[in-house]
């Protein structure tokens, strides 16, 4: 990789290129050429002599492109004649379309303040989108109750099947195990006071009032919320949502409404089922390990769990249904147009759902405490 200069004579600077030019070698510094072009001597043309050039690849083109830029900046003509034929053609190809300077993404200097500002702007933008989405979903619900919403009944029944019957195995397993764990952890402490029978109270109240709803909500966030985001996100990628919009059909009614309805209808039922499975799990520990018979366990649970607890659990689960459906559909609708965006939408749906479930649980618990139920 050798470069030397001849001249300038009569306004022409001749650049000699020789040796083997390969990527990975040391490129001659552009500064040398810059110094030559900036010298006080008037240069009107840059020419090349590449007779001694044995081999070359893109490394030569990198240098030539830089020289070309320098020449055009200084209004100097660059004569390509002395260059190898292939290099000449590739250089013309690389410089054929001028750079569109404002198409480049401007990289701001990311100071701490800049990052805080950018995150704040992003937060408010997301909050605005979320509020607009919730408003749109609410309006879709109103149209549904007025009987004006446009959606396919088969989509609703499919969503009900997906959110209901198909979720039963995983809800059974998780709820049974949660009941079992609650009973086991509580029983060890209660046994010290000879109060094993209160396992039924502990498991019954915990499952019915909060744990049944929270566990079902979490399962549905991971299972159904992510699926909603992925389904709608993929439709966005495939322009299916554009096709709906241009047909004058609201994606909010057509896609979001059936999914939200299905989850709101199915969540209380799943929660009820989870409550029963959790109590069953507790009874397995109580009967199997602490000599309590099944009838005693049943009577104790019946006495401990009030109807209020049931209603609170069912109300909580319906709220979770709305939250999971909203998070899943919102993230799906916000999805970009690439495959990775679909993955991000699914992940984001799960995170948003779980965070909102925890926050909602805290709010409902405090409210119940304030009301005194």
């Amino acid at each position, binding site marked *: 990789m050798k470069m030397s200069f001849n001249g300038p004579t009569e306004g022409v600077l001749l650049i000699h290129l020789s040796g083997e030019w390969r990527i990975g070698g040391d490129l001659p510094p552009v500064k040398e050429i810059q110094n030559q072009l900036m010298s006080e001597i008037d240069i009107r043309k840059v020419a090349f002599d590449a007779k001694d050039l044995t081999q070359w690849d893109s490394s030569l083109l990198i240098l030539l492109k830089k020289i070309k830029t320098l020449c055009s900046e200084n209004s100097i003509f660059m004569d390509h004649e002395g260059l190898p034929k292939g290099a000449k053609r590739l250089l013309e190809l690389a410089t054929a*379309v*001028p750079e*569109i300077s*404002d*198409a480049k993404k401007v990289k701001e200097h990311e100071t701490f303040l800049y990052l805080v500002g950018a995150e704040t702007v992003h937060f408010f933008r997301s909050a605005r989108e979320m509020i607009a989405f919730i408003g749109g979903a609410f309006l879709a619900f109103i149209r549904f109750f007025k009987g004006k919403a*446009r959606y396919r009944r088969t*989509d609703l029944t*499919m969503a009900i099947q997906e959110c209901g019957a198909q979720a039963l195995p995983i809800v059974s397993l998780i709820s049974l195990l949660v009941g079992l764990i609650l009973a086991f952890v509580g029983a060890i402490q209660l046994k010290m006071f000879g109060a094993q029978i209160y396992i039924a109270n502990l498991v019954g109240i915990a499952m019915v009032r909060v744990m049944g709803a929270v566990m079902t909500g979490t399962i549905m966030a991971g299972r159904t919320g992510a699926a909603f985001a992925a389904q709608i996100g*993929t*439709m966005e990628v*495939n*322009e*299916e949502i*554009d*096709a*709906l*919009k*241009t*047909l*004058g*059909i609201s994606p909010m009614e057509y896609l979001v409404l059936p999914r939200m309805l299905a989850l709101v209808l199915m969540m209380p039922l799943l929660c009820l089922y989870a409550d029963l499975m959790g109590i069953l799990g507790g009874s397995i520990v109580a009967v199997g390990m602490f000599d309590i018979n099944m009838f005693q366990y049943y009577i104790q649970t019946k006495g401990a769990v009030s109807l209020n607890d049931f209603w609170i659990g069912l109300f909580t689960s319906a709220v979770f249904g709305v939250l999971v459906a909203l998070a899943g559909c919102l993230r799906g609708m916000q999805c970009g147009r690439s495959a990775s965006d679909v993955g991000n939408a699914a992940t984001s749906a799960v995170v948003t759902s779980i965070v909102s479930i925890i926050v909602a649980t805290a709010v409902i618990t405090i409210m119940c405490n304030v009301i005194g139920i």
Partner: protein
Amino acid sequence: MAHPQQTTKPAPYITIRDLTMAYDSFVVMKDLNFTIDRGDVFIIMGGSGCGKSTLMKIMVGLKEPAKGQIFYNDLSFWEADLSDRMNIMKHIGILYQYGALWSSMTLAENVAFPLEEYTDLGHNEIWELVSLKLAMVGLSGFEDFYPSEISGGMRKRAALARAIALDPDILFFDEPSAGLDPVSAKRLDDLILELRDSLGATIIVVTHELASIFAIGNNSVFLDPETRTMIAQGNPKMLLENTQDPKVLNFLMRGDTKGHIS
């Protein structure tokens, strides 16, 4: 509401006036002015990434323009109220680049959906129409297939059947030949002309496929990514013969302009 200028010719069907398209602060195209007459096969052409599909999205209501207006007859699309805009959109059929068939529906259900939404036809009449439309695009017998079960070319044809389900006045095609073999592309071109002649539809095609441009286009606009505006308008064959613009000539001759540019 503003109205397009009156001329001695019959009023153009679609008028684009001073249109600027942008993504945030980045202006994709500016100062677009052209008209499309009823019955035209109008080509929006230009190199990759010049904003052809964005222009189509603005024309069909999927993206708002940064500036300017689009008139359908004498109604300004983006200034019209929602019901008027929806009324225009009902008369538009679109074939998206990758079909955009609804994946949860069969081909028949895809074609039937616009009919169910916008007509009062009974079940049997709708299914007769569905069979007819699918037969028109050579997909008779594939009614119960899902989009994932057929090839890309078939998906495109099924999407065309959906686009023509309501016998639209205006048909948009986004890169119709993309991903098709030459024979299928030729069949689609023939189908486009057939639809123009039989339905009397105005057809707008976004493409850079030269074979299609010359085969079907009777009017066109050329978008230039460097100047970010339109630099030519007219019949593509006439443009090839008469244009003095090296960029247009270069495009229309696939870069092989030796002997044409003096």
